């Protein structure tokens, strides 16, 4: 029978992918010094991928990895030195392994990769570094023997002598089971050879003194017999065909051949009996973690979203029924659902390190490509974000780092002239602040050239020639579609499509981008992202018959809306809140609704973009758990909306994008001022 191993294959792919991701960091670590632990850890990754790869149908991956592993074996045994050349080729080899893994096994695509120029170049380079020719120890990596081919049932006679060594019984050898297995192959005459048995007084009960001689008549080929003793001590096994019938054996001989070289080696090994170099212990700890495919997490999240909505409906019905028992159980269910939600969301949280790690490689490769010496500093890698957010951030962050290195940092000569260290610095940092995570990419370059951006914006029709925006607004223009200030096109950052893409990606995650620049000192771009995407605490408000949701995290307080308190000095809409003046927006105006006729309205004070803002609504309905659904392509670009959700009564409610409204309020104020 053949067990279904597809689940194990899946595990292998996941495991290998993680290991290759980790490998990149390990290789980069070598640049800051190669201690024994690091080299061992790298060797172990290669060893595991090779060994498992060949078992799970990734032969091309295993064969390639073998050469790579050889190199690190050389390092381990002190035959080779770690230098930049080795790190370079190792990083490339790692990429090649990833590509082979992505082929999903031995496919035509994998074969193509295996025969590719990159593969050849890598193997040549590895061989050159190791100081040997192209000759490769392919033989030891023969693909696993396939199922035994059908052969003619020709009965042959074998004589088998099996003489386990003295420690065999102590070490768990079971000659009885072995002999039973041999007998099962055909007709067997088994004879016990006890001639070595000492006198009883000298007998060591744990020692094996026996040998077995078997005369076996079977249609099975030699390798079937050898397979029985597969695990056993090779040196103690002799198999010979009794009266070989040349014609009959011709078919079987080639099939038996592959087993031979390995056996020969094993025999040599036992004869030498040299103590092998002890494999050193490494530091990685064992973990109690369970691996879950991301798709399953998404499923759980979807179901949880449905549960939250159903629970809201239940809540509504219970409230209308006014049954105390029902209400108390509904409260209990609500508490449990909230707990389940928080637990599920926390499972989805990953440290941002997982994506930061990649950038070391990006920075290294770019340093070479751009000829700029750049150090990358990473802070706050332990900050956690929803997995979806992290996945979608990876690309934008790469764009930003490229921009910083390509456009932000000056070349060495200019840095020196400006009295800066020649080595540029890019800092990647993350921290949590309330319901948001702030990710910043900062460089110590020349800063944005306000005038150049302004000119380019006018040239591109993004700005009227007579417009007088402030510098901050001009800097924002680098996020505009099709904008670029680089006077020479560079393959690295392209034509400035990067920053546009960054903003779109961040906004699609309900986040914002901010940019701060100091001439001569550098530029910092900050991404503000919600910690989670899927479910938030919502604050329900009413406008006429419509219900809207304001993210609770943004809500500071609610006050009565006193028309009298409204100050319309110079046309501004300001609200006196204790001793402060707070700008406000009437959501009826924002959403182009007919003006409200309700006498007692409310103001929800929210904080976004670091400023307070009042939102005038007809009424406040309470809180709920809001399962955020993204808007379709028809509505995605409507300013002021962050998504939609389904309320307890089944109605659809829109979610207000507070940050956009805050920007809008600020812009309106400036215009008036």
């Amino acid at each position, binding site marked *: 029978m053949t067990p279904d191993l597809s689940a194990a294959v899946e595990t292998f792919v996941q495991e290998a992918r993680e290991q290759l991701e980790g490998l990149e960091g390990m290789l980069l670590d070598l640049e800051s010094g190669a201690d024994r632990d690091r080299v061992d850890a790298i060797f*172990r990754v290669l060893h595991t991928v*090779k060994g498992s790869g060949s078992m799970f149908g990734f032969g091309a991956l295993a064969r390639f990895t073998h050469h790579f592993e050889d190199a690190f074996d050389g390092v381990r045994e002190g035959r080779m030195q770690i230098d930049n050349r080795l790190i370079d080729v190792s990083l490339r080899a790692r990429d090649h392994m990833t590509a082979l893994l992505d082929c999903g096994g031995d496919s035509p695509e994998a074969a193509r990769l295996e025969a590719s120029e990159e593969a050849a170049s890598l193997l040549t380079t590895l061989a050159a570094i190791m100081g040997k020719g192209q000759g490769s120890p392919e033989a030891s990596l023969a693909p696993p023997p396939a199922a035994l081919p059908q052969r003619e049932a020709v009965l042959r006679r074998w004589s088998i002598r099996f003489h386990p060594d003295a420690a065999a019984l102590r070490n768990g050898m*079971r000659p009885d089971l072995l002999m039973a297995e041999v007998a099962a192959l055909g007709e067997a005459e088994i004879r016990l050879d006890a001639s070595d048995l000492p006198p009883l007084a000298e007998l060591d009960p744990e020692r094996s003194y026996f040998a077995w001689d078997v005369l076996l008549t079977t249609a099975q080929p030699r390798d079937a017999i050898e397979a029985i003793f597969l695990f056993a001590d090779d040196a103690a096994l002799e198999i010979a065909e009794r009266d070989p019938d040349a014609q009959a054996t011709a078919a079987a001989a080639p099939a038996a051949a592959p087993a031979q070289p390995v056996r020969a080696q094993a025999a040599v090994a036992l004869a030498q009996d040299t103590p092998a170099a002890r494999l050193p212990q490494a530091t990685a700890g064992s973990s109690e973690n369970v691996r879950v495919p991301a798709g399953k997490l998404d499923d759980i999240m979807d179901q949880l979203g449905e549960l939250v909505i159903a629970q809201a409906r239940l809540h509504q019905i219970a409230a209308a029924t006014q049954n105390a028992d029902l209400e108390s159980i509904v409260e209990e269910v609500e508490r449990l659902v909230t707990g389940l939600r928080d637990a599920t969301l926390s499972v989805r949280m990953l440290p941002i390190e997982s994506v930061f790690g990649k950038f070391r490689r990006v920075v290294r490769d770019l340093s070479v490509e751009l000829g700029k010496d750049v150090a990358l500093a990473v802070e706050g890698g332990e900050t956690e974000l929803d997995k979806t957010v992290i996945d979608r951030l990876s690309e934008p962050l790469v764009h930003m780092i490229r921009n910083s290195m390509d456009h932000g940092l000056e070349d060495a000569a200019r840095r020196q002239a400006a009295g800066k260290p020649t080595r540029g610095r890019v800092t990647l940092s993350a921290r949590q602040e309330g319901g948001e995570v702030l990710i910043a990419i900062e460089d110590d370059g020349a800063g944005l050239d306000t005038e150049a951006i302004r000119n380019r914006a006018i040239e591109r029709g993004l700005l009227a020639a007579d417009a007088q925006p402030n510098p901050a607004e001009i800097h924002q223009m680098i996020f505009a579609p099709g904008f670029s200030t680089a006077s020479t096109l560079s393959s690295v950052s392209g034509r400035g499509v990067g920053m546009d893409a960054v903003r779109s990606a961040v906004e699609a995650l309900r986040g914002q981008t901010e940019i701060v620049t100091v001439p001569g000192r550098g530029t910092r771009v900050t991404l503000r992202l919600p910690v989670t995407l899927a479910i938030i605490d919502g604050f329900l408000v009413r406008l006429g018959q419509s219900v809207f949701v304001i993210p609770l995290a943004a809500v500071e307080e609610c006050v009565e809306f006193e028309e009298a308190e409204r100050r319309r000095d110079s046309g501004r809409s300001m609200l006196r809140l204790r001793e402060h003046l707070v700008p406000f927006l009437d959501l009826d105006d924002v959403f182009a609704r007919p003006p409200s006729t309700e006498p007692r309205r409310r103001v929800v004070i929210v904080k976004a973009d670091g400023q307070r803002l009042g939102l005038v609504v007809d009424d406040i309905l309470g809180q709920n758990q809001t399962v955020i659904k993204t808007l379709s392509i028809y509505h995605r670009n409507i300013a002021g909306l962050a998504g939609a959700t389904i309320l307890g009564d089944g109605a659809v409610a829109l979610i207000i994008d507070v940050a956009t409204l805050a920007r809008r309020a600020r812009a309106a104020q400036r215009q008036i001022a």
Partner: protein
Amino acid sequence: MAHTILAVDDSKSIRDMIKLTLVPLGYRVVEGDNGQSGIEVFRREQVSLVITDLNMPVMNGFDFIRAVRGMPKGAGVPIIMLTTESKPEAKAEGKAAGATGWITKPFTPENLISVAKRLAG
């Protein structure tokens, strides 16, 4: 009573493969992800056969085999080492440590089944 087989490997895919192959045949498979955790499991369980990888973090297979052989309940229990090394010295060291034999990776489910049948019964 079902025989219990202890699979020690830092690679979950290999442990999965061992499980997927042997559990349907009625064996019970317990796992350790390195020598250290393997020893803990071995202490706890009545193991009929040990299948262990050699190159593992925390505690490698050789030390694990030596540790098992050093325990009273470790005498006579077959230990099979899994090795990608065609390196003879690794096998020699394994044997010296007390391994019953080895299977060279890549191995097939059939290899595994026959070894289990032969050694665990």
